[in-house]
């Protein structure tokens, strides 16, 4: 069994540290290994720390935190060889690192595999970051590599800004699910398995990560496809939806990613039914 690694990316101040602390609190027996660039960036909440070494901190519940400094690959190799092995590695990339490049490098290290890329975006900052001459393209590349984007600090910025950021982010992270969560309150399993949120094909097993519900909705009778898709897109707990609905004009395909929605002509042999993936408990 190879050791899964979730890459946690996002520009400075996006809330990576807060999320990591929340994950540790939710670990519930899972042995998480947190890897950070340097400890200066990760003030782990003091009550979680059991023992501190130069490059390694032992945390409550068998979790560890280590700094990889300037040699990520060597640190990963060491982590893969750790006994007993951790259940999951969460690799916090530096604010300017490209998570896509890191994900492809993970394939080089024997015994580990990339579980996906989670990119955090501060809803109040993301527009400015994208418009910045120096770091804009870096943030674009981070978002493009995301399997899951977590919009953070929405409670401070307000709903309008969240909606705006959601649209902006979706434009750059077209294959990613987008969720909003302040204070790092994202279900642990969502962060550990960001790829599983990807739309399952009909007939294939659905993603069953705890904290996410994947269900098939078959509206009764005929519906207006635009209204149906718009309503799904307006529900914050809905991450993705894809499928086909009966309308007065016949079968139509609806697709929802975050607040974005689209109605199109169905493929041949399509049947009515929409797979909806949503958070179990809006957090």
């Amino acid at each position, binding site marked *: 069994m190879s050791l899964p690694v979730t890459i946690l990316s996002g520009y400075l101040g996006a809330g990576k540290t807060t999320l990591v602390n929340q994950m540790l609190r939710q670990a519930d027996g899972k042995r998480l290994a947190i890897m950070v660039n340097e400890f200066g960036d990760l003030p782990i909440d003091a009550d979680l720390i059991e023992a501190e070494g130069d490059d390694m901190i032992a945390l409550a519940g068998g979790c560890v935190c280590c700094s990889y400094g300037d040699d990520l690959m060597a640190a990963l190799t060491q982590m893969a060889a750790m006994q007993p092995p951790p259940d999951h590695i969460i690799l916090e990339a530096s604010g300017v690192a490209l998570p896509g490049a890191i994900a492809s490098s993970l394939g080089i290290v024997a015994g580990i595999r990339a579980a996906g890329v989670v990119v955090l975006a501060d809803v109040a900052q993301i527009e400015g970051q994208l418009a910045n001459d120096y*770091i804009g393209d*870096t943030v674009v590349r981070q978002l493009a590599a995301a399997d899951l984007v977590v919009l953070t600090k929405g409670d401070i910025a307000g709903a309008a800004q969240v909606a705006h950021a959601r649209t902006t982010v979706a434009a750059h992270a077209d294959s990613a699910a987008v969720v909003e969560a302040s204070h790092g309150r994202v279900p642990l399993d969502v962060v550990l398995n960001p790829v599983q949120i990807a739309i399952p094909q009909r007939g294939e097993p659905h993603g069953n990560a705890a904290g996410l519900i994947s269900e098939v909705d078959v509206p009764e009778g005929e519906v207006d496809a635009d209204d149906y898709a718009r309503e799904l897109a307006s529900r914050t707990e809905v991450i993705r939806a894809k499928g086909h609905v009966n309308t007065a004009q016949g079968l139509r395909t609806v697709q929802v990613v975050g607040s974005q929605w689209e109605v199109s002509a169905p493929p041949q042999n399509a049947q009515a039914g929409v797979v909806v993936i949503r958070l179990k408990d809006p957090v």
Partner: protein
Amino acid sequence: MITIYKARKIITMNPAHAHTTHVAVRDGKILGTGPLEDLEGWGDYTLDDRFADKVLMPGLIEAHSHLMEGSLWAYTYVGFFDRMSPEGEMQKGSKNLQEVLAKLKEAESKIEDPDAPMPAWSLDPIYFDNVRVTRHDLDQVSSTRPIGIMHASGHIMNVNTKALELAGMMRAGVNHDGVPLGDDGMPLGELKGPDVMTPVSPFVGFDRDMLACDEKGIWRFGKLCVRAGVTTATDLANKLPDETVNMFTKITGQTKYPTRIVSLRFHHGISPEDLIDHAIALKPKSTEMLRLGKIKVIVDGSIQGFSARLREPGYFNGAPNGLWYISPEHLKYILENALEKGIHINTHTNGDQATQLVIETMTEALRKHPSSDHRFVLQHCQLADAAQFRKIAKLGMCVNLFANHHFYWGDEHYKLTVGPERAERMNAAGTALREGVPMTIHSDAPITPLGPLFTGWCAVNRLTASGRTLGEADKITVDQALYAITLGAAYTLHMDQEIGSIEAGKRADFAVLEDDPEEIGSDKLKDVRVWGTVQGGRVFAVADI
């Protein structure tokens, strides 16, 4: 005890006594220069005329090198160009892949332990039509011993099948831009970029902390300095843990060690706060021969690796823009705190966008913490244009341009990376001086060989390896080049009060030359023969090291 050295000619870099014939030395420091009668008043002296037919210059200063150059000589050199080893053995360049393999085979046959890895260095396939070296080629040298060859750029490594096996990479399904695959779906053994090199490096004998250098390497580095006429050299990027500092202190403190080392703490792998604290803690550990407390910040990558940050119009071949190795926020923190606390910062910027970021960040930082004399240095600064140099001058910053790069990779930049116009302006020493920027030039050894006179030749002639003159307008004169590798370099290190010229009160650091660099001709500056050095009054002859 006063010694007066008589020389054929002394080039002092002191305009009041630009050229003279005698220099008086006491306790490692210069009492004065001039004709003998001007110096006799200092009291009893010994007249030493061993340099009577030599030319003395201020000890040359290499302001951007790495001690790793010394460590690499423990490995097999397979570079294209002839290169002098620390022990004075001219290593012949390998002109094609067959010669590389032949050299490796010869070295391999001398290793007794059948399992010992074999590292080699300085391969540069751009000089043989960019032929791709593969594991199959290296398997001809040995199929049982792991072999790894570091490219001259330091960005690519070639390994054999055994090395891939040991690293767990000899398998199908490796999916990475930096790992080209063969028709069989297996890695070809070319590893591009640090991410894919580091998992294999330990198996081929490249120690992870090679940058920090080992004892043997430091001694070898010292020998290379004597051969190049260098009496002060920088070690530009070191983590400087206590054990390294202790080793450096011990070795450089020995009377036989010929080089003053300036070692900089680099920013990777440590928080900006800890970086500032470490630099402050390092500074008081400085000695006469080991200078600490400066910081190196790596802002972007390299141009030939397409990881440098470029402004528009970007890379000539359409490659996407490069990488930031530090966030603008952390750069700002470091510059502001360094200005406030008097720490000397050196920023590595290759691309002009990275340079622009430093310029703009520095402009703001200086508003908060005005400094009359910070002399922060833009290292490499290869693509800066005239407007940037004007701004750099206004900010009180210095540049250390990579003149050697022009010779070794100028053709590649012309054809591939930035295109003809910007390739011509790379390392624009002429512009820098015209715009009033304090400037020095460097080798970045081991990326290119240590040798300030060669570096000066590069800046004076701006020739590429293929013989193209790249950037006529940015040539500098021999006098400007000689200044750049002495007092110019000293200024950028905040050391011009003690080294860089031969004048009263300064360290008795001399480059002892067989030929006169002012007379030999600008096209032959690189051919000036070095007899040795005098460092702090101690004489080091190339013939004796």
